[in-house]
């Protein structure tokens, strides 16, 4: 029915651009307000422990199970390719490097966005729609400090640990398949791995990656919850946005970080 003129379309496009910039700015202010300055009234440590439980411990099961399976699959695939060149012993090296450099941080971040990130968004969105955030503010407690900050910190702390656990169980799963099932000699499996994995290049870079991902994913999740339309439709949209934005951000950043860390230029 309604026809839009070219000028109108340009106007709408411009407005959408300005909206994006404004949202970005709002999210940065949101982060600064939450993390800097006066800390939460009351027992901040207790709040953090509670969130570490909700965000970290509750994500443990999915991380461990996925880690084992991914390690096992890597081992199987690696073996079938490497055995063509007669270098089955290198399977340990391949599994470890793949997990430490890429799959550990990235898959953990993606699973974390789906499991903990969406839950954070929904929880905060729900608090907003039931006016719990407003009511905190009216009691004189800053919801950014009381609700948001502990969740942000819990995410920042949990994800690198989860990524490390993911890599360890993944390598364990890979070793199980390679050694017990495919018959790779145990000594050369581990020796090859230890010879080729460097602590600084591989382990530390992986940890740095997952720290960056933790920051971005948690920020997106919490901000989407805080900024959502306070209706049930708004919350479900925000939850979807969390998973989509966080996943895209993780994959995009992974490319940049990999280029910076392992690229030779």
């Amino acid at each position, binding site marked *: 029915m309604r026809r839009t003129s070219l000028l109108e379309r340009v106007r709408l496009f411009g407005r959408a651009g300005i909206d994006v910039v404004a949202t970005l700015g709002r999210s940065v202010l949101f982060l600064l307000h939450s993390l800097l300055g006066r800390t939460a009234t009351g027992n901040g440590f207790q709040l953090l422990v509670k969130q570490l439980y909700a965000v970290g411990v509750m994500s443990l099961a999915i991380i461990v199970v996925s880690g084992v399976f991914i390690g096992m699959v890597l081992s199987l695939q690696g073996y079938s390719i490497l055995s063509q060149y007669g270098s089955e012993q290198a399977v340990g090296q391949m599994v470890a490097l793949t997990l430490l450099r890429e799959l550990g941080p990235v898959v953990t971040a993606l699973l974390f966005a789906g499991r903990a990130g969406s839950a954070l968004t929904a929880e905060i969105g729900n608090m907003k729609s039931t006016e719990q955030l407003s009511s905190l503010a009216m009691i004189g407690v800053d919801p950014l400090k009381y609700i948001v900050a502990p969740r942000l910190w819990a995410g920042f702390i949990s994800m690198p640990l989860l990524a*490390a656990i993911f890599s360890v169980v993944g390598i364990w799963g890979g070793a199980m398949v390679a050694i017990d099932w495919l018959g790779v000699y145990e000594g050369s499996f581990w020796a090859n*791995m230890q010879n080729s994995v460097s602590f600084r290049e591989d382990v530390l870079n992986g940890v740095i990656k997952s720290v960056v991902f933790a920051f971005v994913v948690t920020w997106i999740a919490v901000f989407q919850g805080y900024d959502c339309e306070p209706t049930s439709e708004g919350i479900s949209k925000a939850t979807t946005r969390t998973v989509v934005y966080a996943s895209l951000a993780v994959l995009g950043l992974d490319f940049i970080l990999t280029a910076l860390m392992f690229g030779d230029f």
Partner: protein
Amino acid sequence: MQNRTLEIGVGLFLLAGVLALLLLALRVSGLTLGAGEGSYKVYAHFDNIAGLTVRSKVTMAGVTIGRVTAIDLDRDSYTGRVTMLLNQEVDNLPEDSTASILTAGLLGEKYIGISVGGEEAVLSDGSVIHDTQSSLVLEDLIGKFLLNSVNKE
């Protein structure tokens, strides 16, 4: 009471995470704390180090006795200078030992093999191995082969 289980859960989680990091460091990357102790530095100049990388093995009679820690270009002689850390236990290498860049298998990684010389004096921290054999470069080999066949005709 419920608070207590929560705290214990979080504590276990943090411990598991730190333990995982430790495992990655020690078991997977084979990081040895206080590396550098019990080892000494030896240098070697190669005309061509193609393919050799930092952390490559240094072997003798097939046994790993050290690793490469740095590779740089010597500006004066235009050769590649390789720095190796050798185990302290192997302190009886003659000064005229030969270091050659070898390949594990046809396409495998490059490593340094050391074969024993005959002198009395032994290598110590900071010494230079003079007798070296460079990496085998396939292009050069083919070039030589072609030149030979041209010369024969």
